[in-house]
């Protein structure tokens, strides 16, 4: 209660009262039971962050703690539940299903991420250079897929990939190339990669474009005076100068790729013999918990995946610390 009253008085104090309050400080400081200005500030800060803090604790920290506690127990269908320390984690890193999922998303990322970020960079450089109205339209068009919810996007692509209705198939058929099953085992990763690239290129392009827009224009002038062409300006000046934004975009993309879930989950319905329950680590964790009722092992898988993501990001940031300016 006293805290609230204290805040009330602080809040009503006009900003101009600051010097006066400073003068009074020795007096109030000696008042028995009173709070110093510093403590009062702290209390105020705590109150202001408390809505966030409450939600953060209730919906992130508490579930995480509960999941971690779950992951340290083993529960079998017969025989009940017991504390098993890190046995689930031991199982995780020798589980061929988990490891094959990790391998799959890594292979996926190695091909898809450079491709997508390359496209995004190219797009950003172009719209940074061209300032006509067309550039605005181009920017909007490329950005639009990001505004489509991932589930809707995946559903739509699933329809386009359909062997009977999909235009891809009818085009290849009319060109005499025969039937292309884009939902087959061989082409599934490519098809998924296409969806992800479609969805996220525009977003990354905007991030890079924003960074390009923040660069000081004088540098370009200097480059021009030194005889650099547009290509050289792009390669030697623009790209190095936005490398920190690129590192950031790359980082988010890597994290997103390791947690790959939505698109395979949606396409699972049209190709469930290809997209198996362990197709990606996240999908595996989901199926373990909600189909096989293996909540404990699922929690361990989730934490292990979290650890892989964390360690991966840490090393990535460490390796690129010079470029990203995060020394």
């Amino acid at each position: 209660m006293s805290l609230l009253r204290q805040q009330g008085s602080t809040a009503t104090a006009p900003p101009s009262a600051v010097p006066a309050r400073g003068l009074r400080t020795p007096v109030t400081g000696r008042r028995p039971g009173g709070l110093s200005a510093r403590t009062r500030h702290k209390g105020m800060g705590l109150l202001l962050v408390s809505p966030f803090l409450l939600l953060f604790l209730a919906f992130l920290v508490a579930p995480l703690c509960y999941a971690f506690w779950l992951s340290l127990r083993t529960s079998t269908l017969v025989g009940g539940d017991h504390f098993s320390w890190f046995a689930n984690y031991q199982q995780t890193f020798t589980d061929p299903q988990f490891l094959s999922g990790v391998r799959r998303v890594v292979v996926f990322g190695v091909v898809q991420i450079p491709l997508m970020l390359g496209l995004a960079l190219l797009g950003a450089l172009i719209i940074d250079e061209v300032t006509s109205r067309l550039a605005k339209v181009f920017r909007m068009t490329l950005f639009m897929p990001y505004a489509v919810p991932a589930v809707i996007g995946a559903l739509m692509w699933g329809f386009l990939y359909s062997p009977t209705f999909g235009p891809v198939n009818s085009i290849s058929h009319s060109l005499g190339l025969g039937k292309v099953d884009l939902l087959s085992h061989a082409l599934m990763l490519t098809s998924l990669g296409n969806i992800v690239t479609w969805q996220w290129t525009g977003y990354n392009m905007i991030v890079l474009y924003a960074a390009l827009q923040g660069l000081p224009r004088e540098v370009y002038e200097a480059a021009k005076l030194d005889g650099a062409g547009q290509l050289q300006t792009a390669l030697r000046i623009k790209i190095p100068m936005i490398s920190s934004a690129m590192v950031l975009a790359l980082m988010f993309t890597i994290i997103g790729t390791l947690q790959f879930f939505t698109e395979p989950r949606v396409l699972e319905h049209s190709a469930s013999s290809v997209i198996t329950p362990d197709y990606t680590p996240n999908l595996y964790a989901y199926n373990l918990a909600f189909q096989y009722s293996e909540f404990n092992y699922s929690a361990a898988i989730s934490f292990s995946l979290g650890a892989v993501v964390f360690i991966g990001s840490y090393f990535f940031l460490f390796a690129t610390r010079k470029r990203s300016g995060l020394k």
Partner: protein
Amino acid sequence: MSSTRRPTSRSVRRTAVAATSAALAGVLLAACGSGGGSGSGTTGSGPVHIKVWAWYPQFKQVVAEFNRTHKDVQVDWVQAGVGQDEYTKLKTALKAGQGAPDVVMLEFQELPTIQLTKGLLDMGKYGANADKGNYVSWAWSQASDGDHVYAIPVDGGPMAMMYRADLFKKYNLKVPTTWAEYKEEAAKLHKADPSAYMTDFGSDETAAGWRQGLAWQAGSRPYTYSASKLPDIGVKLNDDNAKKVYEYWGDLVKNKLVDTASYATTDFYNGLSTGKYATYIAAGWGPGYLSSVAAKTSGKWRVAPLPQWTAGAGAQGDWGGSSFSVTSQTKHPKEATEVARELFGTSQAAWKIGIDQAYLFPLSNPILNGAYFKSKKYDFFGGQQINSVFVPAANGISTFDWSPFQDYAYNTDTSEVGKALQGQNAWSSVNDNVQQQVTSYASKQGFKVSK
């Protein structure tokens, strides 16, 4: 760059964030407050409200009929998703200790799984054993374990073959009575029209029950399980009968005599309605399904008994079907049991809705063998009395146990079939691989597995 940002705009934004999150917290707390109760229960002296999860839309009329004929118990219906979606919610609610309905619609193959997590009430304690004689025996044996009753059967899925009479006539095909004939006719059809297939091989997860039903017909009994004999379980997924079925279909797939689109996809519906598929091997609920997804082919279909492995053997299998269970979270076990028993039970009025509108295949003996159901003519099948095929099929089904890890078994089967389909593994290895994975899973889960 950050030096150019004005501090005022930053603090304004922070205030906005704080205000938004405070508002959000309020909303969430309010949501928690109103959603805290399980929704069922009495207030004062009014009737007991029982919350039921079921998924077909026509259930609305069944509920209305129940509420009209009952005074002290009223049903509140919730559509909580179809099949797997509902089970996911149920399992989560059971794990959480709250949020499950009083009565839930469950397919037979799911019963042991939910029962094992102690999620189901033993209705035997509330008089459900009295219903035993009302239901076909294989269904009752799947819903109960001795005197413990975990579910009240509702509808079943005796398998039969639906075929396009017009296409059979056009290509001069004979209605097959054995699987060997089925293959011959398939070859004949595909030769006459390379874009047509005898049927679609169910390779996906939603068709796992279809594959199991066909193996059931062939005599495969993969599980020996009873909840009262835990932790013992018998698992034999790779006996000769099961292998025979998988190799047969693998052969049809390899020779491109059947299509391999996933069931319940637009490609599959398209195949059923355009004449791409000449037959549809389906279950007792299939006529309703077919007439809704392939409405424009009305009048062209007929129903024939499932082809046999041995001519004239009359072996049958089941695919799907559902029951009503009472969850262990109910606060009104007596009333919930009453709801499970009497929603359909032997009520003529409820079953009339079930048969005419929801195309349910009754497992209730008086209804199943009653004159109305047996003699009903279906316009979609050119006026054929299709139940003269389905009723003997239902009565010819022999007992079958499900495992308490059926989702795992189905998923494993689907993965292995997928590998065979993609040419990564031989069709002959599917059953052995599934057996190996399922038994190792069962052992890890603490079962004493006999193979």
